[in-house]
């Protein structure tokens, strides 16, 4: 007589310390080994796309902030670049430089959250607080400029809402010199820690073919060995004026494309962002940031798809305009939405503890998944 066994379904429910937001993962387990992972999303759906159809083009900007709330500048940046393409206007150079500086500072802040919370999920409590101390300094720089620490409403279509504070450039330079050695601290504490490497190397390996087929982009794609960065390959704003490298996963501690590689690519990207900020701070020209903001935005009939490099991947805005002051359709392709779809593929054959490691390494933000 054979015993009938069935797989156990474990629910990592909407409220869970490690799922980075309200996400429900339905795990089908055989003992401790995962057979299938089914993500259920929609808990944070706030109908951004429907709202955008009721607002005018400038009014949509505060809504874009709230999608990926850990890198709000980039959401605004992407939207502004898309609408400026539709209108065909050119913004002053000072505006471009400030947008780049703010964007890269935001990238560092977002990566610090990703790294800190990843350590927290694996069980290392201290790097989380170290990362947040440094992030506070970046948030004070933002507060100095536009008054808000997290959701800015700063980048407007055609320009910016405020010019830089007179102390900003000096404070930003101080921050860069202060922060550079801190990355080494983080590496000593977490990156090369034997236990951390045991938990993340050779776990959740993402082969390159699968990654491209699933539409993965950003640091996750670069960790699988493919050198693809929209700042260089489909360049926007003034990124073509800066000198920076694109870190790629090389499988230093395990195989190419495992969780450690995805984590390490983010650490290396912080250094690259610091380089860009330094160069931008040196080259920033004078100018008026609000001069090119149009009084009334009424683009011609047409559509455009434009993309920027979010800290999490490729953020795409597909805007269809029908000649009225309100957009006809705004479709946002959020990278976290796409990346969550690959969880089933990555988690097969691993253990429950690895689900946490893999989910943390993909770095999702539920605001972007659900919009």
């Amino acid at each position, binding site marked *: 007589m054979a015993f009938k066994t069935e797989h156990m379904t474990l629910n990592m429910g909407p409220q869970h310390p490690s799922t980075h937001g309200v996400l429900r993962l339905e795990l089908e387990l055989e003992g401790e080994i995962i057979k299938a992972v089914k993500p259920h999303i929609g808990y944070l759906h706030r109908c951004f796309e429907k709202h955008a159809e009721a607002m005018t083009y400038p009014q949509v900007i505060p809504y874009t902030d709230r999608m990926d709330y850990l890198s709000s500048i980039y959401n605004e940046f992407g939207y502004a670049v898309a609408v400026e393409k539709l209108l065909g206007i050119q913004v002053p150079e000072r505006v471009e430089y400030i947008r780049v500086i703010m964007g890269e500072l935001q990238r560092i802040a977002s990566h610090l959250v990703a790294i800190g919370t990843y350590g927290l999920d694996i069980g290392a409590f201290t790097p989380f607080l170290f990362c947040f101390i440094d992030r506070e300094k970046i948030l004070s720089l933002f507060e100095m400029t536009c008054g808000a620490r997290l959701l800015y409403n700063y980048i407007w279509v055609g320009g910016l809402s405020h010019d830089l504070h007179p102390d900003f450039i000096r404070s930003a330079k101080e921050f860069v010199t202060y922060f550079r050695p801190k990355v080494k601290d983080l590496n000593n504490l977490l990156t090369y820690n034997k236990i951390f490497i045991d938990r993340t190397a050779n776990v959740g390996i993402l082969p390159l073919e699968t990654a491209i087929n*699933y*539409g993965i982009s950003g640091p996750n794609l670069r960790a699988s060995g493919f050198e693809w960065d929209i700042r260089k390959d489909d360049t926007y704003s003034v990124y073509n004026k800066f000198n920076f490298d694109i870190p790629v996963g090389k499988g230093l501690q395990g195989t190419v494309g495992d969780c450690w590689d995805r984590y390490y690519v983010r650490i290396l990207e912080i250094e690259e962002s610091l380089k860009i900020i330094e160069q931008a701070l040196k080259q920033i020209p004078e100018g008026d940031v609000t001069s090119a903001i149009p009084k009334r935005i009424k683009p011609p009939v047409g559509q455009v*798809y434009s993309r920027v490099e979010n800290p999490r991947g490729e953020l795409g805005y597909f805007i269809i305009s029908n000649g009225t002051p309100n957009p006809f359709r705004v*479709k946002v*392709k959020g990278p976290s939405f796409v990346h969550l779809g690959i969880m089933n593929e990555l988690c097969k054959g691993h253990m429950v503890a690895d689900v946490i490691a893999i989910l943390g390494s993909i770095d999702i933000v539920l605001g972007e998944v659900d919009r």
Partner: protein
Amino acid sequence: MKNIQEIFSILKEKLGDFVLELTSSQPFEPFITISPLKINEVCLFLRDNEDLKFDSLVCLSGVDDANGKTIKDENGDNKIEGGTLSVYYHLESTKFRHKVVLKVSAARENPEVSSVALIWHHADWHEREAYDLVGINFLNHPDLRRILMPYDWEAGHPLRKDYKNPEFYQGMKVPY
């Protein structure tokens, strides 16, 4: 690296019947219109052809074209009859770095489009979202169900232009 004219002529040559037209009159993005039930064959060709190699689907968006007639139904609300629902596909090749935009339009009353989820797995969740929010039915999709709205939402598809919120959902008042 090919531009859209060349890609259009290759497509017309190999799969002539399914490829309808190339619209490049409007600014910024010319697109190729494909017939809705054959989009999966066109996409398979685009992905596997050696000169084109579109191995990456960048974005898939469902759109309510709202190009039908607006009439008033029994409750006094506006309803759109006729017209089409469209899906836009943005494709890119990581090898040759060229891009193309495809469009399919399906009738509003019975919108059916072949699914490309088995060609690019990226399309899986995007098609579920298009089904959920716009109401387009994707044939041969491995798991077509709602993704952002609750699974038992019966009041329709929110991104349609004539969508109206229901009064109650499971006993809770919806507009507040």
